[in-house]
């Protein structure tokens, strides 16, 4: 120790560590996990979920395979543009479900672009707290969710960046961060508060400097600040996933648009490529954990194996395809979830899709009809919804002076 003090560098490290502890203990530097420096699709969804005063009964989980048809269908159904970053329920589903069962339910869409089972795990584990948990989760999955070669690690997704701010990652750290550098980064963040909270601290410091710069160098009075699109053009690497309100629009579709088909096979050739066992097993593990946690929280889960086109399916070897189908359905049933298998049926045609995996709004409507029909015939789902409808409904009636009808 005395030797160490001979070096100014060691002394500096000690002072830095003490400072880090002090900053960590100071209330001025405790940041709310929901205070995001900027909002991506995930950020908007979390914000909306946390700010929503009402609990939703049905929560959708999944990737863009779920998100795109949900919002596309609502744009048609409501006959107006839908802002994907602000619209977080499925009006069509709620309406159809009420038609089929008479139940007046609220839905929330936590389906996110690129969402993996590891992200779904974080949603269910960290965000679905007692007063926020839904009665039923509708979880749409596709082969990509388990077999994506382009994913370096579960911690590489945009949803992870936002969702990991909520809750403790220690129990799943080795699976979330299989790469030793990611893990080291995480452990350093735990060791040094300043490092762990660096993005918040940087955001805080930037916020302070913005005021100074704005007062010294204000925007010229006869000029307007550049648009978000121009900023994205000029600085594409700055906040690449940021989404502004009014930017991710779903418009009502026309028959001509339904006929448009975009070939994204090249992308999926890369995604499927050679089976990466570690990705597959990790994601399957998170899928199982998600279902298990949902069960332990008393949430009924309906797993929907999403339809994909025959040409996309053909990219997968029979082994990989069977592996996906069997593991998902077996795991779901083992964890007490219901399964709607739409991936092994010819009910969906290529004409229902906008590309090789995403359903367009007409195909999405067809898909939601199947989901509603299946759920409304599932007594476990109905019972989960009816139980809380009664309790929640009574509370709502009391709150709204008896105007809400069950």
């Amino acid at each position: 120790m005395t030797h160490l003090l001979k070096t100014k560098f060691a002394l500096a490290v000690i002072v830095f560590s003490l400072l880090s502890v002090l900053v960590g203990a100071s209330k001025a530097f405790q940041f709310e996990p929901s205070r995001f420096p900027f909002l991506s699709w995930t950020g908007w969804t979390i914000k909306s979920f946390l700010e929503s005063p009402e609990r939703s009964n049905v929560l959708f989980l999944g990737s863009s395979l779920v998100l795109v048809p949900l919002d596309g269908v609502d744009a048609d159904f409501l006959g107006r543009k839908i802002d994907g970053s602000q619209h977080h329920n499925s009006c069509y589903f709620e309406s159809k479900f009420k038609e089929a069962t008479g139940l007046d339910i609220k839905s929330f869409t936590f389906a996110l672009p690129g969402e993996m089972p590891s992200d779904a795990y974080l949603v269910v584990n960290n965000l679905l707290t007692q007063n926020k948990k839904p009665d039923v989760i509708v979880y749409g999955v596709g082969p990509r969710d388990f077999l994506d070669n382009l994913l370096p690690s579960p911690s590489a997704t945009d949803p992870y960046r936002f969702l990991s701010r909520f809750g403790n990652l220690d129990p799943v750290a080795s699976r979330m961060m299989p790469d030793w550098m990611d893990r080291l980064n995480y452990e350093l963040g735990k060791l040094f508060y300043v490092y762990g909270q660096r993005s918040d601290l940087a955001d805080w410091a930037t916020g302070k400097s913005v005021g100074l710069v704005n007062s010294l160098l204000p925007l010229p009075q006869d000029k307007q600040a550049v648009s978000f699109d121009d900023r994205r053009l000029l600085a594409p690497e700055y906040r690449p996933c940021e989404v502004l309100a009014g930017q991710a629009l779903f418009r009502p579709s026309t028959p001509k648009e339904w006929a448009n088909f975009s070939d994204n096979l090249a992308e999926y050739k890369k995604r499927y490529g050679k089976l990466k066992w570690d990705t597959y097993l990790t994601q399957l593990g998170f899928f199982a954990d998600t279902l298990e946690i949902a069960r332990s929280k008393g949430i009924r889960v309906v797993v929907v194996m999403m339809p994909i086109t025959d040409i996309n399916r053909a990219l997968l070897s029979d082994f990989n395809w069977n592996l996906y189908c069997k593991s998902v359905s077996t795991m779901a049933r083992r964890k007490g979830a219901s399964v709607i298998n739409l991936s092994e049926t010819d009910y969906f045609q290529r004409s229902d899709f906008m590309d090789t995996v995403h359903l367009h709004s007409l195909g999405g409507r067809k898909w939601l009809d199947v989901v509603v029909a299946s759920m409304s015939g599932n007594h476990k789902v109905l019972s989960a919804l009816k139980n809380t409808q009664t309790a929640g409904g009574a509370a709502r009636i009391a709150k709204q002076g008896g105007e809400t009808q069950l």
Partner: protein
Amino acid sequence: MLFNSLQYLVFLPTVFLLFWLVPHRLRVPLLLVASYVFYMSWRPIYGLLIFGLTLGNFLLVPLIAKAQETKQKKIWLGVVVAANLITLGIFKYAYFGMGCVKSGLNLFGVDWHEPHLHIILPLGISFFVFEFIHYAVEVYRGKPLVAKFMDFALFASFFPTQIAGPIKRYMDFIPQLDIPAKFKWEYIDEGMQLILVGLCKKVLVADNLALVVQAGFSHPEKFGSLDLWLITYAFAFQIFFDFAGYTDIARGSALLFGYKVPINFNLPYLAANVADFWHRWHISLSTWLRDYLFIPLGGSRGGKWLTNRNLFITMALGGLWHGAASHYLAWGVYQGVVLILHREYVELLKRVGVYEKLVASKLYHVFSVVCTFHIVCVGWVFFRAETETSAMQIITKLLQAPVDLLHFTTSQLSILQIRDPIIFPSVILIVPVLMISQVVVNWLSDKKIYKNPPWAIQVGMMVAMMCLLTIFSPDTSPRFIYFQF
């Protein structure tokens, strides 16, 4: 492996600890293994390339020394230099060469489809090839051979300087390997201070300026002449802080093992003329070009026209050394031309008889520094622009600046309209601060408080740098600019 990565944060202390724990005879092998691990962490196969070149040079260069006649020596020197240059040519200039051939054939109406060779430029090849050539030429000139293969292999692959220099001289480096150095705490203090300063230069200054520079050089049409001057200044400081930052980290890392590698920069933007700039900028490259290209071409021994020709060739090839693209060649040509013009200007002043008087004048010195900085900045436009067309577009706009300055209002500055990220308008403040910082450092450089500050200041500075680096380090920092060369 990048210096500004977590990998390096683990790698460097590990090698450092092992180095001082093992006996002296194992230190060179240890550093050699570490250097190959460092290099091969990027693409393992390229470890074979650096090893092959090392072995080839180690075996061939003694033939130069052994040759009895000058003619024979020259032949062997030619063989060694050609082998190194051919390797560099294949990996670095094959696509550029084929592109030139294709363009040439197109002029004659021939549509040639060049083959795709799947060549990826090996990191640092330009640097270690230059070190091999330096070794061969020095042996040809009568300097001693390196006796031990391990020493020679470490000279070429020493990880702190492997990727982007400084380009070492074997007579300076190899003798350090034989000294059975004892550990000193100062190695840690001095080395880590250099590393922290280097990281701050890179992460805090260069990487932030990169955002503005990228915008300006990719979309010059979105900016006015005054914006483009600011952006050009910003690039001048970005490339300086990026490369000087790298060099500081390299020197600091080497110092942790008790080794000294040459400095590469000496406040280049305070140069009073272009020749002076090249004595202060990338010193290890400019001295290499002087010793192994300019002087062999005849240097300044053959009269005015030959000297100018040699200068021109040296700088043009120096430009091409930076990258296989015509805008680098254009930058080199520009440097050659301005160096020649400077020589002519000095001669003119001497003929008129005002040179001594002007050089002694402080006002003229300030004027010269400002002029030189702007001449260098115009050169940086060729260097940074993606094509010569783009460079010319930017330079045309830069030339409009005097007119715009005549009726200047802040409304002319498009950069002020980009409020997020805040670095865009901040550049207006940052650039002058960086300019002044050069003057301040120059003023402080001979002061005791700067050369040997009190320990409390040193500790305070290190803590401040640690905090800033911790908070403002992005998850992914761009690579050092000079890695591509």
